[in-house]
């Protein structure tokens, strides 16, 4: 067993982790060679992060390692006393996390935070450490490294924070870097840059990287070796090429199928306009001083013109902070629009009148509230934890007086709705915390459907979900569209799901629409530089697929 390839840096053998006799990690083994990027893929709860914590010996106390060993250059980490392990952490194995916001101490200068690591582990003095930090910052691509040394975390952008984290991890020149979903919280363009940086560092330093992710696109981009985890077991492990061309395990096949975007676009069918935004502006005042004088405006939405057709989906793409969610809220009149109009066409009536929603008072708006509904991103905060499912769904029906007012009829309708979104009638007396993320998202959809809307604003409804669940929810939305001729305004940052859902695409940047058109136009013949940049930063997996379609 000891006589493995000389190049193996880290190897995990027969690792099993239990909590209260329930196995969370079941007898997994893998090894990472020098300069290799090993991707550990799996959905949430599959045990991939636990594996990395086990390697660092940082498992929570309730969890016990019952068998197996972890060898770092032939040294069994489980046999080491804690004080030696502390030297290994940081010096030999370093780690970067998903959330750069919470991984940095907000009251310490970023440079100092990295310098501290150097002083503790390498015993450098103050000025040596400072110089080393600045050179590290330059290596990870932080501009004006000398000035940034003095900055506090909140002054940096998300991507820069992640770079600082990487610099900190690299500070003591470790042999192995564990990257736990390092790009999940970042925008696509930033993600591409960070991934490139990690690759460059690997090439330059010959570092081994254990890359933990749920995103097949990222795996395709980064990995040399891939292992897929499911419920604490490694179900498949292969070279990247073999993995993507010939997945063997059914779970892997399903995962890949759900992750790779569909390559046929929806036909653009002529249809009547349901909602027309004209030169919509939403400006938030910036107030300062003792008397709260307005000193300027944040132009969240700055002159947007859009059209949503009956029975079709408009995908609104943009990075965080581009104002795409604000448009949704302005349509719902949850924020006041500064100028412009939101014209809703009453297609159901014979007269076909058009009404500007921005001009309505809250009372006049009420009849339109049942026509426009909303589904949210985070399935955990979208449902009131103190209400049962039937109370949640009933609320809209009562408030907007949809359907019969009798409780029995409403109960029946709730059961119908639950059935429609793939849940069981007996779920209605339960509380939200008893459901998984995907199920909660279905409840959110049922709640919106309860008032029989014509337009549903979907605000990143799938970005918090696992790939397989995401595919199910998208299918559900698709079916509902077919059945009820629903229109969707689909707000997303994820390009890969657009072909599967959208008829039209609009790309948004800094409050303005930079480009819009049919899915085919945007995906194949982008005109604006920003759209091109966005498409370029998309994972290769996605781009290849697009080209096949083209």
């Amino acid at each position, binding site marked *: 067993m000891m006589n493995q390839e000389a190049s193996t840096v880290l190897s995990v053998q027969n690792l099993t982790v239990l909590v209260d006799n329930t196995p969370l990690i079941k007898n997994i083994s893998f090894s990472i060679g020098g300069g290799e990027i090993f991707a550990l893929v799996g959905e949430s709860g599959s045990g991939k992060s636990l594996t990395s914590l086990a390697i660092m010996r940082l498992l929570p106390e309730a969890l016990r390692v019952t068998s197996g060993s972890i060898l770092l250059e032939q040294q069994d980490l489980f046999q080491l006393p804690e004080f030696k392990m502390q030297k290994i952490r940081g010096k030999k194995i370093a780690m970067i996390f998903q959330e750069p916001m919470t991984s940095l101490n907000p009251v310490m200068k970023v440079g100092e935070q990295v310098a501290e690591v150097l002083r503790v582990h390498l015993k450098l003095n103050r000025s040596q450490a400072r110089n080393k930090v600045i050179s590290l910052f330059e290596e990870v691509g932080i501009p004006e490294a000398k000035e940034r040394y003095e900055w506090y975390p909140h002054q940096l952008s998300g991507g820069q924070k992640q770079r600082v984290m990487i610099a900190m991890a690299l500070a003591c020149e470790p042999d192995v870097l564990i990257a736990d979903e390092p790009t999940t919280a970042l925008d696509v363009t930033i993600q591409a840059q960070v991934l490139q940086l990690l690759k460059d560092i690997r090439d330059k330093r010959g570092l081994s990287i254990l890359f933990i992710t749920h995103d097949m696109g990222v795996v395709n981009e980064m990995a040399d070796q891939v292992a897929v985890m499911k419920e604490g077991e490694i179900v498949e492990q292969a070279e990247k090429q073999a993995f993507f061309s010939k997945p063997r395990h059914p779970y892997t096949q399903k995962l890949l199928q759900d992750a790779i975007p569909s390559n046929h676009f929806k036909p653009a069918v002529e249809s009547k306009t349901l909602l027309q935004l004209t030169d919509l502006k939403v400006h938030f005042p910036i107030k300062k001083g003792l008397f709260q004088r307005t000193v300027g405006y944040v132009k969240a939405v700055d002159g947007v013109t859009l059209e949503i057709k009956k029975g079709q989906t408009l995908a609104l793409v943009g990075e965080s902070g581009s104002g795409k969610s604000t448009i949704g809220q302005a349509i719902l009149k949850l924020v006041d629009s500064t100028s412009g109009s939101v014209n809703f066409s009453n297609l159901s009536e014979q007269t076909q009148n058009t009404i500007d929603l921005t001009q309505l008072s809250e009372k006049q708006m009420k009849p339109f509230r049942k026509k426009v509904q909303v589904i*949210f991103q985070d399935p955990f905060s*979208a449902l*009131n934890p103190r209400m049962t499912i039937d109370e949640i769904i009933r609320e809209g029906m009562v*408030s*907007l007086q949809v359907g019969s007012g009798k409780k029995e009829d409403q109960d029946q309708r709730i059961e119908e709705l639950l059935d429609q979104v793939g849940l069981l009638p007996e779920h209605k007396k339960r509380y939200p915390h008893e459901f998984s993320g995907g199920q909660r998202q279905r409840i*959110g959809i049922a709640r919106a459907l309860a008032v029989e809307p014509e337009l549903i604003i979907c605000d990143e409804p799938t970005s918090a979900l696992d790939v397989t669940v995401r595919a199910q929810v998208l299918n559900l939305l698709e079916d509902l569209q077919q059945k009820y001729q629903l229109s969707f305004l689909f707000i997303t940052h994820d390009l890969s799901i657009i072909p599967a859902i959208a008829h039209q695409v609009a790309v948004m940047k800094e409050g303005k629409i930079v480009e819009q058109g049919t899915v085919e136009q945007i995906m194949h013949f982008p005109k604006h530089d920003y759209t091109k940049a966005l498409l370029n930063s998309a994972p290769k997996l996605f781009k290849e697929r697009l080209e096949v379609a083209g």
Partner: protein
Amino acid sequence: MSFVWLWTDILVWTLVLVLIGAVRSIRRSEQIRKQWFYILKSPIAMSAAIVLSFYLLFALLDSVHFQYTPSKQGEATEQTVSSANNQGVLSLLDVILQHLRDKTERTYSAPFATHEYSTSLSYDESGAVTQVYRPLKFGGQHWTGSHTILDDVMVKTAIPFLFSCIFIAFIFTIHLGWGFVKTRGNYIDYYANQPDPKDELPWGAAYFTLFLLVFLFSWFYYLSHFYHVLGTDKVGQDVLYQAVKSIRTGVLIGLLTTLVMLPLALILGISAGYFKGWVDDVIQYVYTTLNSIPGVLLIAAAVLMMQVIITNNSDWFGSTEERADLRLLFLIFILGLTSWTGLCRLLRAETLKISQVEYVTAAKSFGLSPFRIIQKHITPNLMHLVLIALVLDFSGLVLAEAVLSYVGVGVDPTTASWGNMINQARLEMAREPMVWWSLFSAFAFMFTLVLAANLFSDRVQTVLDPRRNN
């Protein structure tokens, strides 16, 4: 005999009704029931809850007042001593402890003493003057001297002990019988098939605490017929009686102040957090200003002002009890008005957070009115904060009463309260030999209450705090 409802009585019984309502709603909602189950699953919390309900029981017994109409001419012959004490407004507790009210001595006597604590001059028949420890009028007068007082007490312990055993056995039988009815006779099957014995409440600890309390109080009660168990004070009043009467003052201040504070904190905190804008500004200015005035100063100023009003308008009050009660009520109001800011600030911050959460947005998109949103979505999600704050504040308020009475701006001097007892003890401690039992009794009674409240609130906080899972 006719009932007299003092203002604080009305408030405390209203609170009891509210509590009963709350218990009923807890029984309805499975989620909250589970939380309370977890709270009571800790043996310490269970014991603390029983101690607290014991105190509450005494406070309630002391909150049923009635006027004793002077007894008819013919019957008043043998009640020469007690008739003087039976004038005025009495509570149920006074009636139970009637013998303690009647047996007042001349001056200080130590616990279980048979003679007074200090000597006094005595003239014998020949006219000689001697310093003697006079025998007490009531305390220990049954004692013949054939055995020591300790032996006598030990022998007399048997009756309360037997009583407590029978009482606990009685409660246990009822408990078993209730379980029998609940499981419809399949009692043994039901408990044999109980999936996890850990899912049971800690009844062992509960019965132990209950036994201890029942034994302690019945022991005190029984022995108080023969001795002054906790001694007597300067004017010969029984200290046990004072300490027990003080329970009402302490518990009421702890409970009713929250009743005053809660609506203020809830309404203002939620409005500030939900409506933002100028509403928020005004409310924030108010509580920042209020917070920057030292609390004791404000309370002292208000109480002194009220004293002036009371002395100038003595014809407003029918009796001294009413006057003392109004002063207690006023103190409660003042404490409530100065202590809402902390909770208000907390609720404002939490409301700001919750009103950004997506389920509130969803409710808005259903066109729900702000009032409905606050009622259905915001308030229920704040209740854990309110509950934690209330139980944490309770012990603080009990202590605050003691401090204020000690300073002299607390409850009326005629109202029995631990603060007043401690205030008196200030001089007694300086005597030689020291009179320690007043301070000790006040301390022991207050300590038990505050400790129980703190232990309970600690558990409530651990269970209800949403951050504990992180």
